[in-house]
């Protein structure tokens, strides 16, 4: 095969040179350079006339263990070709993957409640090496419909373009790169039955918008996200007035007169420490009134783990313009939490972790809420993908009596 190739290459070059009237000296020089190239090639990769197919010899020894087959010295090129390229395969079932997660919660306290909080299905498809679809479909609170507690939601559906050198772009409906839980919230990745209230009420997690985004991964562990997307539309009247979380339009026939942008810079040491700073800008956070309510969210998060010890901390702060927000004492909404934890791993692959969390946050929802929260609890992972959780939570809101709850949960992801 290879010698055929060499020969035909030679013939082609001969005919080309005959046609273009090349002298014999020039031809000889070309032949010489060709020979030199072949020699260099053989030196590096072995003789060209060696049979390409691997002849597999009989097992060297017939020991009781696995059979060992010896192959002739592979050329580096054949080793590399086995591992480079798209190893995922090209059939539809190799290009399409499904995954998901779910969590069932039992909350006991003033009010006892059991709820299959989330059932989520991911469907992803790789169109080719460069273009992929990611989608996430969610059923919240188990039962959706008119007057029913739940919702059916499209939480992610975007096309991702993988560009060169760690750069990727996406377009569609996606989770914003803000905080810790917003993008990564599979139940086995965090402590506590319910997601923490700081990210829920301030950021507000889980928060998705429609738009375009760019992500750049640097080799030194720095990752930068930038996104331009649809905006919040916070109500300025009613029982949820000035509540940021209620401003999520969920990209459902949403008002698009305003726009927003998000950015995040993240640094990960690769051996336990991860830091991030994030920001979101809204051109007008409340489309429903006539004034200018531009708003800015600034925040930072840190995660550290070493041995069994873990620490998660987050702070975020909204500053909102406009007389109506100022009058309602809703122009500044903020929160932070600190969550130390310790985890033990066992020989059978299971793990147990305990944690404590202190949260403080102030947000608007009709009126201003000032809250301190204390949580202690335990996670048990029988395997990596399944978690059983319990926690005890004391929520102290100014002007109200303490709300104490004991919570249980089971969660999975695949």
């Amino acid at each position, binding site marked *: 095969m290879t010698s055929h190739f060499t020969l035909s290459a030679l013939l082609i070059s001969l005919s080309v040179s005959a046609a273009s009237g090349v002298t014999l000296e020039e031809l000889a020089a070309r032949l010489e350079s060709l020979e030199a190239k072949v020699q260099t090639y053989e030196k590096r990769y072995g003789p060209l006339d060696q049979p390409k197919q691997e002849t597999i010899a009989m097992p060297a020894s017939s020991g009781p263990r*696995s059979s060992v087959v010896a192959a002739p010295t592979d050329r580096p090129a054949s080793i590399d070709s086995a591992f480079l390229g798209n*190893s995922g395969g090209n059939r539809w079932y190799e290009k399409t993957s499904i995954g998901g997660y779910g969590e069932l919660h039992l909350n006991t306290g003033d009010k006892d409640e059991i709820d299959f909080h989330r059932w989520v299905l991911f469907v992803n498809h790789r169109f080719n090496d460069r273009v992929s679809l990611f989608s996430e479909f969610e059923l919240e609170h188990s039962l959706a419909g008119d007057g029913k507690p739940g919702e059916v939601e499209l939480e992610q559906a975007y096309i991702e373009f993988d560009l060169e050198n760690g750069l990727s772009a996406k377009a569609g409906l996606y989770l914003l790169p803000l905080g810790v839980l917003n993008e*990564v919230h599979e139940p086995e990745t965090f402590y506590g039955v319910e997601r923490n209230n700081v990210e829920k009420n301030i950021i507000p997690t889980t928060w998705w918008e429609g738009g375009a985004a760019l992500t750049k991964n640097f*080799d030194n562990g720095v990752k930068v996200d*930038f996104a331009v997307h649809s905006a919040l539309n916070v109500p300025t009247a009613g029982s949820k007035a000035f509540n940021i979380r209620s401003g999520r339009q969920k990209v459902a026939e949403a008002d698009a007169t305003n726009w927003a942008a998000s950015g995040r810079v993240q640094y990960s*040491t690769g051996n336990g420490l991860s830091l991030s700073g994030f920001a979101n*800008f809204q051109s007008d956070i409340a489309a429903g009134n006539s004034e200018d309510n531009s708003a800015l969210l600034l925040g930072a998060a840190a995660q550290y783990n070493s041995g*069994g010890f873990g620490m998660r901390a987050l702070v975020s702060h909204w500053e909102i313009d406009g007389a109506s927000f100022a009058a309602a004492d809703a122009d500044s909404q903020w929160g932070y939490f600190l969550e130390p934890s310790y985890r033990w791993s066992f020989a059978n*692959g299971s793990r147990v972790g305990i944690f404590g969390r202190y949260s403080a946050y102030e947000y608007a929802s009709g009126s201003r809420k000032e809250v301190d929260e204390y949580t202690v609890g335990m996670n048990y992972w029988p395997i990596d993908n399944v978690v059983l959780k319990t926690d005890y939570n004391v929520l102290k809101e100014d002007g109200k009596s303490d709300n104490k709850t004991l919570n249980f949960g089971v969660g999975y992801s695949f």
Partner: protein
Amino acid sequence: MANLIIKPLTLVSATASRLRPLFFVIALLLSGGSAFSAERIYQKPSDFIRESLGTIPATRALSLNAGQQKVVRAILGKRYKTSSIRYWSVGKKTAFILEEIGKTEYITTGYLVSGGKISSVKVLVYRETHGWEVGRPSFTKQFRGARLAQGMQLNKGVKNIAGATLSVRALTKLARLALYLETLK
């Protein structure tokens, strides 16, 4: 107050950047796809073998029998992608090039094992947009010296990377697999 100063700046820069992502996408689509590549090659597999063993010895392969497949399944939670696994060996050192899915794509990783201990781990090819942090030496060097302990677990813990959990798990499973495979050759 600070907001008053910050905001005009944010507004101007954000408006300018507003069209940039779109421009990027369109420009790169128009460039015929040559600028695209999901696959990131940190090191060629053959170069990993040469660097680890000083030479490229004959490729050998382990064919797993039913009992061994069972152990592999216990480690990975599923069968390995192929029934025969190649390796390269010089003296006491053995190099494996193993692949496991992080989230949706295979991560190709080189493991150098010697006398029941991991000598080095190197991510060779990474194909996903998330979890790239596992390719950093500060992460992979944590495996150095790891051995198989009770229950086919590693005797030392590997620190998780926030946001790269699945990739960390994949590389940890493959480290256990490499140590197990070394006992079979």
